[in-house]
Protein backbone atom coordinates (compact mmCIF):
# COMPACT_ATOMS: atom_id res chain seq x y z
CA UNK A 1 0.00 0.00 0.00
CA UNK A 2 1.63 3.20 -1.21
CA UNK A 3 0.85 6.31 0.70
CA UNK A 4 3.86 8.26 -0.45
CA UNK A 5 1.75 11.05 -1.93
CA UNK A 6 0.75 12.03 1.59
CA UNK A 7 4.19 13.47 2.10
CA UNK A 8 4.13 15.54 -1.09
CA UNK A 9 2.70 18.71 0.48
CA UNK A 10 5.51 18.53 3.02
CA UNK A 11 8.17 17.96 0.38
CA UNK A 12 6.92 20.97 -1.58
CA UNK A 13 6.83 23.03 1.61
CA UNK A 14 10.32 21.95 2.53
CA UNK A 15 11.63 22.86 -0.90
CA UNK A 16 10.00 26.31 -0.79
CA UNK A 17 10.75 27.31 2.78
CA UNK A 18 13.89 25.44 3.76
CA UNK A 19 15.82 24.59 0.64
CA UNK A 20 15.19 27.75 -1.41
CA UNK A 21 15.94 30.19 1.44
CA UNK A 22 19.25 28.48 2.18
CA UNK A 23 20.08 28.57 -1.51
CA UNK A 24 19.37 32.32 -1.44
CA UNK A 25 21.79 32.78 1.46
CA UNK A 26 24.45 30.95 -0.51
CA UNK A 27 23.61 33.02 -3.59
CA UNK A 28 23.88 36.33 -1.76
CA UNK A 29 27.11 35.33 -0.07
CA UNK A 30 28.77 34.66 -3.41
CA UNK A 31 27.53 37.58 -5.50
CA UNK A 32 27.81 41.32 -5.60
CA UNK A 33 25.67 43.85 -7.40
CA UNK A 34 27.59 46.05 -9.78
CA UNK A 35 26.44 48.51 -12.43
CA UNK A 36 26.34 45.83 -15.08
CA UNK A 37 24.40 43.31 -13.05
CA UNK A 38 25.36 40.51 -10.72
CA UNK A 39 28.87 39.27 -10.46
CA UNK A 40 30.33 36.21 -8.76
CA UNK A 41 32.76 37.11 -5.99
CA UNK A 42 34.47 35.79 -2.91
CA UNK A 43 35.03 39.31 -1.59
CA UNK A 44 32.49 38.95 1.23
CA UNK A 45 34.32 35.97 2.63
CA UNK A 46 37.59 37.79 2.18
CA UNK A 47 36.18 40.73 4.10
CA UNK A 48 35.32 38.42 6.97
CA UNK A 49 39.01 37.54 7.21
CA UNK A 50 39.79 41.10 8.32
CA UNK A 51 41.06 41.23 11.92
CA UNK A 52 38.07 43.19 13.21
CA UNK A 53 35.67 40.43 12.14
CA UNK A 54 37.96 37.56 13.01
CA UNK A 55 38.13 39.02 16.51
CA UNK A 56 34.32 38.78 16.70
CA UNK A 57 34.44 35.16 15.59
CA UNK A 58 37.21 34.47 18.08
CA UNK A 59 35.24 36.10 20.90
CA UNK A 60 32.10 34.14 20.04
CA UNK A 61 33.97 30.85 20.07
CA UNK A 62 35.81 31.82 23.26
CA UNK A 63 32.70 32.78 25.22
CA UNK A 64 30.83 29.73 23.93
CA UNK A 65 33.72 27.46 24.95
CA UNK A 66 33.88 29.06 28.40
CA UNK A 67 30.16 28.50 28.89
CA UNK A 68 30.43 24.93 27.64
CA UNK A 69 33.23 24.10 30.07
CA UNK A 70 31.40 25.69 33.01
CA UNK A 71 28.21 23.84 32.06
CA UNK A 72 30.14 20.57 31.95
CA UNK A 73 31.77 21.14 35.36
CA UNK A 74 28.48 22.20 36.97
CA UNK A 75 26.33 19.78 35.02
CA UNK A 76 28.12 16.46 35.29
CA UNK A 77 27.70 16.08 39.08
CA UNK A 78 24.08 17.17 38.74
CA UNK A 79 23.48 14.52 36.07
CA UNK A 80 25.04 11.90 38.36
CA UNK A 81 22.79 12.97 41.21
CA UNK A 82 19.69 12.82 39.00
CA UNK A 83 20.69 9.41 37.63
CA UNK A 84 21.66 7.98 41.01
CA UNK A 85 19.42 6.08 43.36
CA UNK A 86 19.71 8.52 46.22
CA UNK A 87 16.31 10.13 46.07
CA UNK A 88 12.75 8.91 46.13
CA UNK A 89 11.11 11.55 43.99
CA UNK A 90 13.48 11.32 41.05
CA UNK A 91 10.79 11.81 38.41
CA UNK A 92 9.76 15.07 40.03
CA UNK A 93 13.37 16.19 40.32
CA UNK A 94 13.99 15.64 36.62
CA UNK A 95 10.75 17.39 35.77
CA UNK A 96 11.68 20.35 37.95
CA UNK A 97 15.00 20.49 36.19
CA UNK A 98 13.32 20.68 32.78
CA UNK A 99 10.68 23.30 33.62
CA UNK A 100 12.84 26.46 33.51
CA UNK A 101 14.12 25.40 30.12
CA UNK A 102 10.66 25.78 28.70
CA UNK A 103 10.27 29.29 29.92
CA UNK A 104 10.93 31.76 27.17
CA UNK A 105 14.69 32.27 27.07
CA UNK A 106 14.24 36.00 26.59
CA UNK A 107 12.49 36.16 29.92
CA UNK A 108 15.13 33.99 31.58
CA UNK A 109 17.79 36.35 30.28
CA UNK A 110 15.74 39.35 31.31
CA UNK A 111 15.44 37.89 34.81
CA UNK A 112 19.21 38.17 35.16
CA UNK A 113 19.07 41.79 34.07
CA UNK A 114 16.89 42.57 37.06
CA UNK A 115 19.32 40.76 39.33
CA UNK A 116 22.54 42.23 38.00
CA UNK A 117 21.66 45.84 37.26
CA UNK A 118 22.99 48.75 39.31
CA UNK A 119 19.90 49.04 41.49
CA UNK A 120 19.21 45.32 41.30
CA UNK A 121 18.83 42.81 44.05
CA UNK A 122 22.49 41.80 44.29
CA UNK A 123 23.72 45.37 44.55
CA UNK A 124 20.98 46.28 47.01
CA UNK A 125 22.11 43.37 49.13
CA UNK A 126 25.74 44.49 48.87
CA UNK A 127 24.95 48.06 49.93
CA UNK A 128 22.87 46.63 52.79
CA UNK A 129 26.04 44.89 53.91
CA UNK A 130 27.82 48.23 53.58
CA UNK A 131 29.80 47.21 50.50
CA UNK A 132 30.21 49.34 47.39
CA UNK A 133 28.03 48.40 44.40
CA UNK A 134 29.58 46.27 41.67
CA UNK A 135 29.40 46.71 37.95
CA UNK A 136 27.76 43.41 37.09
CA UNK A 137 25.56 44.01 34.10
CA UNK A 138 26.98 44.70 30.64
CA UNK A 139 30.17 42.72 31.23
CA UNK A 140 31.61 39.71 29.48
CA UNK A 141 31.04 37.67 32.65
CA UNK A 142 27.35 38.54 32.56
CA UNK A 143 27.14 37.19 29.01
CA UNK A 144 28.80 33.92 30.06
CA UNK A 145 26.51 33.71 33.08
CA UNK A 146 23.50 34.16 30.83
CA UNK A 147 24.71 31.39 28.53
CA UNK A 148 25.39 29.00 31.40
CA UNK A 149 22.00 29.73 32.92
CA UNK A 150 20.16 29.22 29.65
CA UNK A 151 22.00 26.15 28.43
CA UNK A 152 22.90 24.17 31.58
CA UNK A 153 19.94 21.76 31.12
CA UNK A 154 21.21 20.91 27.64
CA UNK A 155 24.38 19.59 29.23
CA UNK A 156 22.74 17.78 32.11
CA UNK A 157 19.96 15.96 30.26
CA UNK A 158 22.02 14.03 27.68
CA UNK A 159 24.56 13.00 30.34
CA UNK A 160 21.72 12.02 32.63
CA UNK A 161 20.07 9.83 30.01
CA UNK A 162 23.34 8.02 29.26
CA UNK A 163 24.26 7.55 32.93
CA UNK A 164 20.83 6.10 33.63
CA UNK A 165 21.36 3.37 31.05
CA UNK A 166 24.75 2.21 32.36
CA UNK A 167 24.65 -1.43 33.34
CA UNK A 168 24.93 -1.46 37.14
CA UNK A 169 26.64 -4.88 37.09
CA UNK A 170 29.66 -3.28 35.39
CA UNK A 171 30.11 -0.98 38.36
CA UNK A 172 29.63 -3.86 40.78
CA UNK A 173 32.15 -5.93 38.86
CA UNK A 174 34.72 -3.13 39.10
CA UNK A 175 34.09 -2.86 42.82
CA UNK A 176 34.37 -6.63 43.27
CA UNK A 177 37.72 -6.46 41.52
CA UNK A 178 38.89 -4.03 44.16
CA UNK A 179 38.50 -0.64 42.49
CA UNK A 180 37.81 2.27 44.84
CA UNK A 181 35.12 4.85 44.14
CA UNK A 182 37.36 7.20 42.19
CA UNK A 183 38.82 4.44 40.03
CA UNK A 184 35.33 3.15 39.24
CA UNK A 185 34.39 6.63 38.10
CA UNK A 186 37.55 7.16 36.09
CA UNK A 187 37.70 3.74 34.47
CA UNK A 188 34.07 2.73 34.13
CA UNK A 189 31.46 5.43 34.61
CA UNK A 190 33.12 8.34 32.86
CA UNK A 191 34.19 6.46 29.70
CA UNK A 192 30.70 4.99 29.39
CA UNK A 193 29.11 8.42 29.75
CA UNK A 194 31.23 9.99 27.00
CA UNK A 195 28.51 9.89 24.31
CA UNK A 196 26.28 11.91 26.62
CA UNK A 197 29.09 14.34 27.40
CA UNK A 198 29.77 14.85 23.71
CA UNK A 199 26.16 15.50 22.77
CA UNK A 200 25.89 17.79 25.79
CA UNK A 201 28.89 19.76 24.58
CA UNK A 202 27.36 20.11 21.12
CA UNK A 203 24.01 21.14 22.51
CA UNK A 204 25.52 23.87 24.68
CA UNK A 205 28.15 25.08 22.26
CA UNK A 206 25.83 25.46 19.26
CA UNK A 207 23.25 27.81 20.74
CA UNK A 208 25.95 29.66 22.69
CA UNK A 209 27.98 30.42 19.60
CA UNK A 210 24.98 31.59 17.59
CA UNK A 211 23.14 33.70 20.15
CA UNK A 212 22.66 37.39 19.66
CA UNK A 213 20.04 37.98 22.31
CA UNK A 214 22.05 37.11 25.40
CA UNK A 215 25.00 39.23 24.33
CA UNK A 216 22.68 42.11 23.46
CA UNK A 217 20.72 42.09 26.71
CA UNK A 218 23.43 41.14 29.23
CA UNK A 219 26.38 42.57 27.31
CA UNK A 220 24.58 45.76 26.43
CA UNK A 221 25.78 45.68 22.85
CA UNK A 222 29.42 46.14 23.84
CA UNK A 223 30.35 42.54 23.22
CA UNK A 224 29.52 41.91 19.61
CA UNK A 225 29.26 38.21 18.88
CA UNK A 226 28.95 36.63 15.48
CA UNK A 227 25.17 36.49 15.92
CA UNK A 228 25.05 40.23 16.61
CA UNK A 229 27.19 40.85 13.56
CA UNK A 230 24.76 38.94 11.35
CA UNK A 231 21.76 40.70 12.88
CA UNK A 232 23.38 44.10 12.31
CA UNK A 233 24.26 43.34 8.70
CA UNK A 234 20.68 42.37 7.91
CA UNK A 235 18.63 44.74 10.03
CA UNK A 236 20.86 47.78 10.51
CA UNK A 237 23.46 48.04 7.79
CA UNK A 238 21.45 46.32 5.09
CA UNK A 239 24.48 44.55 3.61
CA UNK A 240 22.82 41.24 2.83
CA UNK A 241 25.78 39.92 0.88
CA UNK A 242 28.19 40.26 3.75
CA UNK A 243 25.54 39.09 6.23
CA UNK A 244 24.94 35.98 4.14
CA UNK A 245 28.66 35.29 3.98
CA UNK A 246 28.91 35.47 7.78
CA UNK A 247 25.89 33.17 8.05
CA UNK A 248 27.61 30.67 5.78
CA UNK A 249 30.69 30.80 8.02
CA UNK A 250 28.47 30.28 11.07
CA UNK A 251 26.73 27.30 9.48
CA UNK A 252 30.13 25.89 8.65
CA UNK A 253 31.26 26.23 12.28
CA UNK A 254 28.07 24.46 13.41
CA UNK A 255 28.32 21.69 10.84
CA UNK A 256 31.98 21.08 11.61
CA UNK A 257 31.33 20.93 15.34
CA UNK A 258 28.42 18.53 14.87
CA UNK A 259 30.53 16.47 12.50
CA UNK A 260 33.45 16.28 14.91
CA UNK A 261 31.16 15.41 17.80
CA UNK A 262 29.17 12.70 16.07
CA UNK A 263 32.35 11.16 14.77
CA UNK A 264 33.33 10.47 18.35
CA UNK A 265 29.87 9.49 19.39
CA UNK A 266 29.74 5.73 19.47
CA UNK A 267 26.02 5.37 19.12
CA UNK A 268 24.68 7.91 16.73
CA UNK A 269 21.36 8.32 18.45
CA UNK A 270 21.21 12.09 18.29
CA UNK A 271 20.80 13.96 15.07
CA UNK A 272 20.51 12.02 11.86
CA UNK A 273 22.39 14.52 9.80
CA UNK A 274 25.64 12.60 9.65
Amino acid sequence: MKKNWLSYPYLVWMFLFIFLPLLLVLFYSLTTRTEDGLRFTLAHFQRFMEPIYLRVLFRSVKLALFSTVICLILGYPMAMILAGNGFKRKQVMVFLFVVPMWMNFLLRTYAWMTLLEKTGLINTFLSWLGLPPLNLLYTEEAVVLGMVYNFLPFMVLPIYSVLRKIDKSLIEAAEDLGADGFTVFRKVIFPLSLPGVLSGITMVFMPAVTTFVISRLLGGGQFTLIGNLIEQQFLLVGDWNFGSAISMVMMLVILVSIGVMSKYEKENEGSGLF
Partner: protein
Amino acid sequence: MTRFLKKSYAALIYLFLYAPILILLVFSFNASKSRGVWAGFTLKWYRELFQDRQIMKALYHTIIIAVLSSTIATVIGTAAAIGIHNMKKLKRKIVMNLTYIPVVNPDIVTGLSLMLLFIFTNFRLGFVSLLLAHITFNIPYVILSVLPKLKQLDKNLYEAALDLGASPFYAYRKVILPEIMPGVITGLLLAFTLSIDDFVISFFTTGSGVSTLSIIVYSMARRGINPKINALSTLLFVTVLLLLVIVNLRTSGTTNGQNKKQAINGKY
Protein backbone atom coordinates in the same frame (compact mmCIF):
# COMPACT_ATOMS: atom_id res chain seq x y z
CA MET B 1 27.72 12.38 54.43
CA THR B 2 27.84 12.01 50.65
CA ARG B 3 24.06 12.01 50.65
CA PHE B 4 24.12 15.35 52.41
CA LEU B 5 26.66 16.68 49.91
CA LYS B 6 24.56 15.50 47.00
CA LYS B 7 21.47 17.06 48.48
CA SER B 8 23.09 20.43 49.02
CA TYR B 9 24.64 20.42 45.54
CA ALA B 10 21.28 19.67 43.95
CA ALA B 11 19.68 22.35 46.12
CA LEU B 12 22.26 24.91 44.94
CA ILE B 13 21.65 24.06 41.29
CA TYR B 14 17.89 24.34 41.73
CA LEU B 15 18.40 27.64 43.50
CA PHE B 16 20.50 28.85 40.57
CA LEU B 17 17.80 27.76 38.13
CA TYR B 18 14.78 29.04 39.99
CA ALA B 19 15.94 32.11 41.90
CA PRO B 20 15.84 34.51 38.92
CA ILE B 21 12.41 33.26 37.88
CA LEU B 22 11.00 33.43 41.40
CA ILE B 23 12.36 36.93 41.90
CA LEU B 24 10.73 37.95 38.64
CA LEU B 25 7.43 36.47 39.83
CA VAL B 26 7.60 38.08 43.25
CA PHE B 27 8.56 41.49 41.96
CA SER B 28 5.72 41.51 39.48
CA PHE B 29 3.57 42.20 42.56
CA ASN B 30 5.89 44.90 43.90
CA ALA B 31 4.40 48.37 44.22
CA SER B 32 7.72 50.13 43.69
CA LYS B 33 9.25 50.35 40.25
CA SER B 34 12.70 49.73 41.71
CA ARG B 35 13.73 46.07 41.96
CA GLY B 36 15.82 46.53 45.06
CA VAL B 37 13.11 47.25 47.57
CA TRP B 38 9.78 45.72 48.39
CA ALA B 39 7.16 48.44 48.66
CA GLY B 40 4.05 46.39 49.21
CA PHE B 41 1.72 44.17 47.20
CA THR B 42 0.04 45.50 44.11
CA LEU B 43 -1.68 44.31 40.97
CA LYS B 44 -0.92 47.61 39.29
CA TRP B 45 1.48 46.14 36.72
CA TYR B 46 -1.04 43.52 35.69
CA ARG B 47 -3.67 46.23 35.26
CA GLU B 48 -1.28 48.31 33.18
CA LEU B 49 -0.34 45.22 31.22
CA PHE B 50 -3.93 44.57 30.25
CA GLN B 51 -4.47 48.21 29.38
CA ASP B 52 -1.42 48.34 27.12
CA ARG B 53 -2.95 48.05 23.66
CA GLN B 54 0.35 47.22 21.99
CA ILE B 55 0.95 44.29 24.33
CA MET B 56 -2.61 43.05 24.02
CA LYS B 57 -2.32 43.14 20.26
CA ALA B 58 0.94 41.20 20.46
CA LEU B 59 -0.71 38.65 22.76
CA TYR B 60 -3.49 38.26 20.22
CA HIS B 61 -0.96 37.72 17.42
CA THR B 62 1.07 35.27 19.48
CA ILE B 63 -1.96 33.11 20.24
CA ILE B 64 -3.44 33.25 16.73
CA ILE B 65 -0.07 32.40 15.16
CA ALA B 66 0.51 29.58 17.64
CA VAL B 67 -2.95 28.07 17.11
CA LEU B 68 -2.86 28.36 13.32
CA SER B 69 0.76 27.31 12.82
CA SER B 70 0.55 24.31 15.15
CA THR B 71 -2.71 23.13 13.58
CA ILE B 72 -1.49 23.48 10.00
CA ALA B 73 1.90 21.98 10.88
CA THR B 74 0.15 19.04 12.54
CA VAL B 75 -1.96 18.32 9.45
CA ILE B 76 0.97 18.60 7.02
CA GLY B 77 3.37 16.87 9.40
CA THR B 78 1.10 13.92 10.21
CA ALA B 79 0.40 13.30 6.53
CA ALA B 80 4.14 13.62 5.83
CA ALA B 81 4.98 11.17 8.59
CA ILE B 82 2.61 8.56 7.15
CA GLY B 83 4.15 9.12 3.73
CA ILE B 84 7.69 8.94 5.03
CA HIS B 85 6.89 5.80 7.00
CA ASN B 86 5.84 4.08 3.78
CA MET B 87 8.87 5.19 1.79
CA LYS B 88 11.71 2.95 0.71
CA LYS B 89 14.69 2.99 3.00
CA LEU B 90 17.04 5.20 0.99
CA LYS B 91 14.41 7.78 0.13
CA ARG B 92 13.25 7.85 3.73
CA LYS B 93 16.77 8.47 4.91
CA ILE B 94 17.22 11.40 2.54
CA VAL B 95 13.92 13.00 3.53
CA MET B 96 14.64 12.50 7.23
CA ASN B 97 18.03 14.14 6.91
CA LEU B 98 16.38 17.12 5.23
CA THR B 99 13.80 17.17 8.02
CA TYR B 100 16.58 17.61 10.53
CA ILE B 101 17.95 20.72 8.80
CA PRO B 102 15.67 23.25 10.54
CA VAL B 103 16.17 21.37 13.81
CA VAL B 104 19.96 21.56 13.63
CA ASN B 105 20.37 24.86 11.81
CA PRO B 106 20.81 27.92 14.04
CA ASP B 107 17.52 29.79 14.44
CA ILE B 108 19.13 32.97 13.26
CA VAL B 109 20.03 31.39 9.92
CA THR B 110 16.55 29.87 9.51
CA GLY B 111 15.05 33.26 10.30
CA LEU B 112 17.17 35.37 8.04
CA SER B 113 17.04 32.91 5.15
CA LEU B 114 13.24 33.05 5.28
CA MET B 115 13.42 36.82 5.45
CA LEU B 116 15.60 36.83 2.34
CA LEU B 117 13.08 34.60 0.56
CA PHE B 118 10.15 36.84 1.43
CA ILE B 119 11.91 40.03 0.42
CA PHE B 120 13.38 38.44 -2.71
CA THR B 121 9.93 37.35 -3.88
CA ASN B 122 8.38 40.69 -2.92
CA PHE B 123 6.22 38.97 -0.33
CA ARG B 124 5.08 41.51 2.24
CA LEU B 125 6.59 40.89 5.67
CA GLY B 126 3.85 40.74 8.25
CA PHE B 127 1.28 38.36 9.64
CA VAL B 128 1.31 35.85 6.79
CA SER B 129 5.09 35.65 6.50
CA LEU B 130 5.28 35.16 10.26
CA LEU B 131 2.71 32.36 10.05
CA LEU B 132 4.55 30.65 7.17
CA ALA B 133 7.82 30.80 9.13
CA HIS B 134 6.23 29.29 12.23
CA ILE B 135 4.63 26.46 10.24
CA THR B 136 8.03 25.78 8.67
CA PHE B 137 9.90 25.29 11.91
CA ASN B 138 7.00 23.40 13.52
CA ILE B 139 6.51 20.67 10.91
CA PRO B 140 9.71 18.69 11.73
CA TYR B 141 8.72 18.40 15.39
CA VAL B 142 5.31 17.02 14.46
CA ILE B 143 6.93 14.48 12.14
CA LEU B 144 9.38 13.47 14.85
CA SER B 145 6.51 12.98 17.31
CA VAL B 146 4.31 10.96 14.95
CA LEU B 147 6.92 8.67 13.36
CA PRO B 148 7.67 6.62 16.52
CA LYS B 149 3.94 5.88 16.88
CA LEU B 150 3.82 4.67 13.28
CA LYS B 151 6.76 2.38 13.92
CA GLN B 152 4.98 0.83 16.89
CA LEU B 153 1.90 0.23 14.79
CA ASP B 154 0.82 -3.34 14.11
CA LYS B 155 0.60 -3.70 10.31
CA ASN B 156 -1.99 -6.45 10.64
CA LEU B 157 -4.56 -4.02 12.00
CA TYR B 158 -4.66 -2.07 8.76
CA GLU B 159 -4.77 -5.23 6.66
CA ALA B 160 -7.50 -6.67 8.85
CA ALA B 161 -9.56 -3.56 8.24
CA LEU B 162 -9.08 -3.93 4.49
CA ASP B 163 -10.02 -7.61 4.66
CA LEU B 164 -13.20 -6.66 6.43
CA GLY B 165 -14.09 -4.47 3.49
CA ALA B 166 -12.95 -1.04 4.56
CA SER B 167 -11.68 1.32 1.89
CA PRO B 168 -8.05 2.41 2.37
CA PHE B 169 -9.17 5.90 3.36
CA TYR B 170 -11.74 4.53 5.82
CA ALA B 171 -9.15 2.16 7.28
CA TYR B 172 -6.74 5.03 7.78
CA ARG B 173 -9.35 7.18 9.44
CA LYS B 174 -10.79 4.49 11.67
CA VAL B 175 -7.74 2.34 12.43
CA ILE B 176 -4.44 4.11 11.85
CA LEU B 177 -5.37 7.60 12.97
CA PRO B 178 -6.73 6.59 16.40
CA GLU B 179 -3.61 4.49 16.96
CA ILE B 180 -1.18 7.32 16.24
CA MET B 181 -3.34 9.98 17.91
CA PRO B 182 -1.16 10.29 21.04
CA GLY B 183 1.83 11.17 18.86
CA VAL B 184 -0.23 13.64 16.86
CA ILE B 185 -1.45 15.41 20.00
CA THR B 186 2.06 15.49 21.46
CA GLY B 187 3.32 16.99 18.20
CA LEU B 188 0.54 19.56 18.24
CA LEU B 189 1.30 20.64 21.80
CA LEU B 190 5.03 20.71 21.13
CA ALA B 191 4.48 22.85 18.03
CA PHE B 192 2.18 25.16 19.97
CA THR B 193 4.73 25.62 22.76
CA LEU B 194 7.61 26.18 20.34
CA SER B 195 5.58 28.74 18.43
CA ILE B 196 4.69 30.66 21.61
CA ASP B 197 8.30 30.47 22.69
CA ASP B 198 10.00 31.52 19.49
CA PHE B 199 11.75 34.82 19.28
CA VAL B 200 14.63 34.69 16.81
CA ILE B 201 12.76 33.45 13.74
CA SER B 202 9.78 35.74 14.43
CA PHE B 203 12.13 38.67 14.85
CA PHE B 204 13.42 38.27 11.31
CA THR B 205 10.22 37.31 9.51
CA THR B 206 7.74 39.81 10.85
CA GLY B 207 6.97 43.21 9.44
CA SER B 208 6.05 46.53 10.91
CA GLY B 209 2.89 46.57 12.97
CA VAL B 210 2.86 42.84 13.67
CA SER B 211 4.75 41.68 16.73
CA THR B 212 4.58 38.76 19.09
CA LEU B 213 5.05 38.88 22.84
CA SER B 214 8.69 37.79 22.53
CA ILE B 215 9.43 40.65 20.18
CA ILE B 216 7.77 43.12 22.56
CA VAL B 217 9.77 41.74 25.48
CA TYR B 218 13.00 42.07 23.51
CA SER B 219 12.38 45.64 22.47
CA MET B 220 11.31 46.59 26.00
CA ALA B 221 14.21 44.79 27.68
CA ARG B 222 16.70 46.44 25.35
CA ARG B 223 15.65 49.75 26.84
CA GLY B 224 16.05 48.47 30.40
CA ILE B 225 13.85 47.05 33.10
CA ASN B 226 10.10 47.39 33.01
CA PRO B 227 7.79 45.95 35.70
CA LYS B 228 5.17 45.20 33.07
CA ILE B 229 7.53 42.57 31.66
CA ASN B 230 7.63 40.93 35.09
CA ALA B 231 3.86 40.65 35.09
CA LEU B 232 3.93 39.31 31.55
CA SER B 233 6.64 36.78 32.45
CA THR B 234 4.62 35.51 35.37
CA LEU B 235 1.59 34.90 33.18
CA LEU B 236 3.65 33.23 30.47
CA PHE B 237 5.51 31.08 32.97
CA VAL B 238 2.28 29.81 34.51
CA THR B 239 0.87 29.07 31.04
CA VAL B 240 3.95 27.14 29.91
CA LEU B 241 4.03 25.26 33.22
CA LEU B 242 0.43 24.16 32.77
CA LEU B 243 1.06 23.04 29.18
CA LEU B 244 4.14 21.13 30.32
CA VAL B 245 2.29 19.32 33.06
CA ILE B 246 -0.36 18.28 30.54
CA VAL B 247 2.21 17.08 27.98
CA ASN B 248 4.16 15.27 30.66
CA LEU B 249 1.13 13.47 32.02
CA ARG B 250 0.29 12.41 28.48
CA THR B 251 3.70 11.04 27.63
CA SER B 252 4.90 9.73 30.98
CA GLY B 253 3.74 6.22 30.03
CA THR B 254 5.63 5.98 26.75
CA THR B 255 9.36 6.07 26.32
CA ASN B 256 10.15 9.12 24.29
CA GLY B 257 13.50 10.23 25.57
CA GLN B 258 14.57 10.46 21.96
CA ASN B 259 11.82 12.92 21.17
CA LYS B 260 12.56 15.04 24.15
CA LYS B 261 16.21 15.20 23.25
CA GLN B 262 15.37 16.31 19.76
CA ALA B 263 12.94 18.85 21.09
CA ILE B 264 15.65 20.27 23.30
CA ASN B 265 18.10 20.22 20.47
CA GLY B 266 15.90 22.38 18.35
CA LYS B 267 14.94 24.97 20.84
CA TYR B 268 17.74 27.34 19.96
